[in-house]
C-alpha cells in the first residue's frame, strides 16, 4: 500500500499499486487485482484518478511506441506514453499532436479518458477527434480493438469515459503536419467581458490558438490578456534567422534540469496577500508584451511544465480547480456572475483562464467540451469557505445549463453532474464492472 495524491493534493490515501509494464499482460493484472482503476501520470486534479484503499493500475510503464507512418502521420503507441515524448520526437520530423492541454506531462491514455482539449478547440476539436482507435483491456480478461466504424458505441463511451470502460492499453493517433516548432503570436489586453467576446469572435476564423487570462479579482471591470497564435510554416520560420539561436537556447534549457518547487510550504503561497499584487503585476507585465511576437510551442502551450511540482505552492491542504463550460447564449452573464461571486467571496483564484469552445459536439458520451465559453479557476483549499464559494458557482453553472470538467473536479454534487451530462445513462451501459474510482462512487453510486 502506498499513499497516492492527485494533482490537487486534496487527499493522500493509501492505494494498492500495481505497475503495468507489459502490454500483453494487462488483462491478467486486471483480472487478478480488481476492482481497480488505471492511473497515468497523476495530472488530473481531483478524484477521477483515485481509488482509495483499493487497487490502482499504474500505466506509465506502458511507454513504448509501436509504429509510425511518415506518409500519413498515424502513430500507434502504448497508453502510458507521455504527450511530451510524442511532441519532442515528432515535431523535429514535421509532425505534431493536433490537440494538447496546458501540460504535456500527461499520458495518452489519460488524454483519451478525459478527452482533453486545448487552445485550438474551435479549429480542430478535442483530443478524441484525432484518436483513430484504441485497444481496451476489460477486467473480464478480454482485450478489445475499438474504432469508430466497428464499435462506435464503446469507442464513444471510452473517449472521455474516465477510465471506467476498461484500461486503454494502446492507441492509434492521427498527428498533423507542422512546418516548424514556432508560433506567430499576438497579445492583446482587454477590459471587460464584452471586449473578450468581441476578440474571441474576431479571432476564431483566422487564429488557430486562442486563450485569455483574466484577473478575476477585478469584478465588474474584469480585465485580462487575450492571446492568439498561429503555427509558422517552415519558410516563414526560415525567413527569421534569429529563431535558430532562440531554439538552441530553448533546447539547452529544456534538456537541463527544470526548476522544481522544492518543498510544500506550511501554508498556501496563494493567499489574500499574494493574489492581488500577483494578478496586477501579471496583467501589467503581459500588457507590456502587447503586439506581435514569435514563440516556441513549448513555453506558449505549457507555461508551467518547466516548474516541477508547482502544485505544492498551494500548501499542505492542496487546491481545487473549478472549470465550467456554459453555452454561449447567456454565457457572458454567467461568467460575469461567477467573477462577481469570486470577488465578493474574497476567495481569490490565481489568474483564471477564459476561452471559447468552437461550435462542435464532442464525440465522447461524457466529453467535457461543448459549444460555449469555459472558465477555469484555481482555489487554495480553505475548507468550508472554499466549498461554499464553489456551491455558489455551481448554482450559476446549473442555471446557465452548463457543466463541470471531471478531470478537474473533486466535489461537484450528483445532480449537477447528471444535469450537465445528458448522455450519462447511455454511457453507464458500457461500464466495466471491475472498475471503480472515488469519482464514480461519488457521482454514479458505484
Amino acid at each position, binding site marked *: *500500500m*502506498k*499513499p497516492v495524491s492527485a494533482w490537487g493534493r486534496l487527499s493522500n490515501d493509501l492505494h*494498492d*499499486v*500495481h*505497475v503495468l*509494464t*507489459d*502490454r*500483453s499482460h494487462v488483462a491478467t493484472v486486471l483480472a487478478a487485482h480488481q476492482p481497480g482503476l488505471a492511473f497515468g501520470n497523476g495530472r488530473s486534479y481531483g478524484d477521477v484518478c483515485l481509488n482509495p484503499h483499493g487497487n490502482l493500475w499504474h500505466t506509465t*510503464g506502458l511507454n*513504448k*511506441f*509501436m*509504429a*509510425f507512418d*511518415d506518409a500519413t502521420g498515424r*502513430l500507434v*503507441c502504448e497508453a502510458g506514453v507521455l504527450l511530451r515524448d510524442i511532441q519532442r*520526437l515528432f515535431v523535429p520530423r514535421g509532425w505534431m499532436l493536433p490537440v494538447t492541454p496546458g501540460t504535456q506531462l500527461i499520458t495518452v491514455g489519460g488524454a483519451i479518458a478525459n478527452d482533453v482539449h486545448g487552445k485550438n478547440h474551435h479549429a480542430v476539436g478535442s483530443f478524441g477527434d484525432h484518436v483513430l482507435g484504441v485497444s481496451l483491456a476489460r477486467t473480464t480478461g478480454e482485450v478489445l480493438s475499438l474504432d469508430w466504424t466497428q464499435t462506435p458505441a464503446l469507442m464513444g463511451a471510452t473517449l472521455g469515459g474516465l477510465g471506467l470502460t476498461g484500461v486503454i492499453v494502446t492507441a492509434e493517433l492521427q498527428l498533423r503536419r507542422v512546418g516548424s516548432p514556432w508560433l506567430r503570436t499576438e497579445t492583446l489586453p482587454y477590459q471587460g467581458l464584452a471586449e473578450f467576446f468581441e476578440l474571441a469572435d474576431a479571432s476564431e476564423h483566422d487564429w488557430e490558438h486562442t486563450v485569455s487570462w483574466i484577473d478575476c479579482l477585478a469584478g465588474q471591470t474584469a480585465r485580462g490578456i487575450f492571446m492568439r497564435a498561429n503555427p509558422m510554416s517552415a519558410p516563414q520560420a526560415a525567413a527569421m534567422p534569429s529563431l535558430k539561436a532562440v531554439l538552441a537556447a530553448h533546447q539547452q534549457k529544456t534538456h537541463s534540469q527544470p526548476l522544481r518547487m522544492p518543498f510544500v510550504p506550511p501554508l498556501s503561497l496563494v493567499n489574500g496577500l499574494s493574489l492581488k499584487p500577483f494578478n496586477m503585476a501579471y496583467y501589467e507585465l503581459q500588457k507590456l508584451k502587447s503586439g506581435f511576437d514569435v514563440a516556441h510551442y513549448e513555453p506558449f502551450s505549457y507555461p508551467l511544465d518547466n516548474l516541477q511540482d508547482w502544485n505544492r505552492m498551494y500548501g499542505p491542504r492542496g487546491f481545487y480547480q473549478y472549470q465550467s463550460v456554459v453555452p454561449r447564449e447567456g454565457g457572458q452573464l454567467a461568467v460575469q456572475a461567477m467573477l462577481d461571486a469570486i470577488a465578493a467571496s474574497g476567495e481569490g483564484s490565481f489568474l483564471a483562464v477564459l476561452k471559447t469552445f468552437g461550435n462542435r459536439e464532442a464525440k465522447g458520451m461524457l466529453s467535457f467540451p461543448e459549444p460555449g465559453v469555459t472558465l477555469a479557476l484555481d482555489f487554495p483549499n480553505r475548507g468550508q469557505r472554499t466549498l461554499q464559494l464553489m456551491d455558489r458557482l455551481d448554482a450559476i453553472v446549473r442555471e446557465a445549463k452548463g457543466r463541470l470538467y471531471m478531470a478537474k473536479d473533486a466535489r461537484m454534487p450528483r445532480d449537477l453532474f447528471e444535469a450537465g451530462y445528458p448522455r450519462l445513462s447511455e454511457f453507464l451501459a458500457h461500464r466495466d464492472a471491475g472498475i471503480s474510482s472515488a469519482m464514480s462512487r461519488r457521482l454514479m453510486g458505484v
Partner: protein
Amino acid sequence: MQHMVIIGATSAMAEHCARLWVQAAPVRLTLVGRDEARTRRVADDLRVRSPQSDVQVMTSDFADATAIQRTVSHIVAQAAVDVVLIAHGVLSDQGTCQDDLLACDAALQINGVSPVLFAEAFAKPMVAANHGTIAIIGSVAGDRGRKTNYVYGAAKGLVSRYAQGMQHRLAHTGVKVVLVKPGPTDTPMTSDLKAKGQKMASVEQVAKDIVKGIASGKPVFYTPGIWQIIMLVVMHLPRFVFNKLNI
C-alpha cells in the same frame, strides 16, 4: 554507424540506454533477449524513435554456455562491435532462495554466471579487434552481503570481481571494461519495492549516467552517484554495528 549490442534488451535500464543512443545518432543495434515478442516490442519502439537506425533482434538461452557462445559468435560475425551492454538480471526473492535450492541456483545463474559468460564470449573477438567497450551492469548489492538479498548480492559480487579481473587483463589493450553499480532504480524489476513506497532513482536518470559512463570508459561507477558514498559507509561499518542493522 556504431554497432551497439544489448544483452537483456528488455531490461528497463538497457531499453532507456538504447533510447538515448538512437536519439543521439542513428546506430546499428543488436538486441538480445530471452523472450522474442518482448524483445521485438523494444525494437519496434526504437525503430519509431529512429527510423535511420538498423535494429536487429535475437533470442538466446541465457543459462546455457553453448547457446551464449553461439549467439555471440553470430553477432560478431555480422559486424564489429563497438559497445556491448550486458544488462540482464532478475531481482530474486531472498526468502524463496533460502527455501528452495532450485530458485537459489537459478538466481545465481541468471544474475552472476550468465553475464560473466557473455562478457567472456565477447572479450575474445573484441581483443582480437583491439577495439570496443564491454559494459556490465552490477549492483550496489554486490558490495556487501546483507541478510535481505545476499543471494542476488553474491551473484552481483561475482560480476564485480570478474569485471575487476578482466579490467586487469585488458588494461593494455584497446578494449575497455566498464562496471556499472546502480542503486535501487524504478524499473519493472523493482515494482514491488516501489509499491511498498521505497524511494528510487528514475530509470531515465540512471540510463543517462550509464550512457555517459560508457562513452567515457570509466572502469567503475555508481548511479546515482550518491551510492558511492552510501556504499563506502556500508562497506566500512564494523561487523558489530552492521549486524544490528535491519537492511
